[in-house]
């Protein structure tokens, strides 16, 4: 199951962050998901990995552009990120997050900075920070179903063994 609501301190990153920067190509060939969590954002800022547990990742536009590597979404999930918020996402990364059970919220958070508390509710469709509530574009019912299952593995397990 994925927690569809939560709150945590913001970890802010810039615009157009590509998936190579989330997890580098040299680390992809393994079955050890935790290994990706250890190396997440290593080429962007090696200090970031240690701050992600329980955090809400707040990114600039076009988050997750580039490679289709699902390891990027998986690394963030394994590192303990609760949700990723950005004004726009690259579509494959967006799908991948939902498929690994990591909430993605399409929303602009002006004035949000590192350490600010961010609350979100995927069901009601809002994000709150600094006393301001922002409404985001709701996920389609299909996406909500995958996300609330905990990701595509659990979704298909449920469908296949119903």
């Amino acid at each position, binding site marked *: 199951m994925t927690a569809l609501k939560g709150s945590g301190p913001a970890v802010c990153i810039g615009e*157009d962050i590509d998936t190579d920067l989330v997890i580098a190509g040299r680390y992809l*060939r*393994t079955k050890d998901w935790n290994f990706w969590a250890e190396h997440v954002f290593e080429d962007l800022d090696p200090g970031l990995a240690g701050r992600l547990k329980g955090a809400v990742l707040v990114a600039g536009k076009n988050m997750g*552009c580039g490679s289709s590597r699902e390891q990027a979404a998986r690394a963030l999930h394994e590192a303990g990120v609760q949700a990723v918020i950005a004004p726009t996402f690259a579509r494959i990364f967006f799908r991948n997050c939902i498929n690994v059970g990591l909430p993605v919220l399409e929303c602009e958070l002006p004035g949000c900075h590192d350490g600010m508390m961010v609350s979100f509710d995927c069901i009601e469709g809002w994000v709150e920070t600094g006393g301001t509530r922002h409404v985001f574009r709701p996920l389609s019912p*299909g996406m909500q179903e995958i996300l609330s299952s905990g990701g595509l593995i659990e979704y298909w397990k449920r469908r296949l063994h119903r």
Partner: protein
Amino acid sequence: MTTLSEKILGARAGTYIDRHVDKAFCHDGTGIQAKIIYDAMGAPGIAFPGTVYIIYDHIAPANNSQTAELQAELRAFAREYKVHFLDIGSGICHQVMAEGRVAPGEVVIGADSHSCTLGALGAFATGVGASDMAGIWVSGETWLRVPDSVGIHLSGSTGAGVEWKDVALSYIAELGMDGATYAAIEFTGESASSVPMEGRLTLCNMAVEAGAKTGLFYADKETERYLARFSVSCQVQVPESPDYVKDCYLDLPGIEPVCAVPHRVDTIKPVQDLAGTSLDQVFIGTCTNGRYEDMARAARILKGHQVKVRTIVVPASGLDYLQAVSTGVIADLIKAGCTIGPPGCGPCLGAHMGVLGKGETALSTANRNFKNRMGVGASYYLCSPSTAAASAIHGEITDPREVI
């Protein structure tokens, strides 16, 4: 009126659909991850094994024992489930699929972001991650949001020394890295029909660099001519005054040789403004520019010269390689001092052979110059094969119009 994406997907832009996938492909990198997910799902089998392709290109051949073991596991899986399996040497998945395995009007999903390449054939082709691929193996279908479309209108003809790669980099710079996010790009206008298939593949390949879901050309006589080589029949597609959410007009005579400069694909400069930039490596290859025509253009420039900087040429596919061997293109490249790699992605993603060191500068015909991608601490410029070849001769960035 209806866009090509709407026509193929059978629904209006903005609609969510569940759609049967006509062809589903992945490579050694995403394939093994999809297999892990597939196993975890506890699925009873692959719904349509005849539509599934696994193609080894990313680290081909394997670079170490860990990679070799993962590749062996996926190889055994492919055999067990009787899906199409193309081992090392076949080439880059997008090029291999373009060689007679995709027809206009099909819905093609690849577990790789550059799957949009196949829109060059008039297919609706887009990329997904490993879990989505596993889901397609299980069910034969996937969900899609029918995209809006951006029209790129091509007019006139390109000048000497200007290639489709220069046109591709120019439209990416015009739209920006997120200028077509969630949308499909349709290449249209008076000059679209005169773009050869190799150019269409290059233009559609880079659509994802503007955030697009896919890039499409309407299937026409050129598509028919190209597919006849592989005995694939072609249904011609005619534009129905499609409605675009955005239009981009590219006057081809106004385009000059350009490079994308470190480290953004959408930041370009004319090659002549960068002339003299010292290089440590030149790389000609990838799903953008590793086709026979790309290697042949490079060889025409390099013939009779010696490269001044290490130059790696990697054919996009085994077929491209064979054609380049039989026409003497490979011999010309080797005589000029180039190193030829096995068909596949080569150094593009920085995972093996040809990776750069800290402080080094490379010129590459690839599609991405993201920071650290081809080697930590190195810098990369992106360009056409002609610019790459001209620059290899001088060991520094050189305008191809000076040597042709």
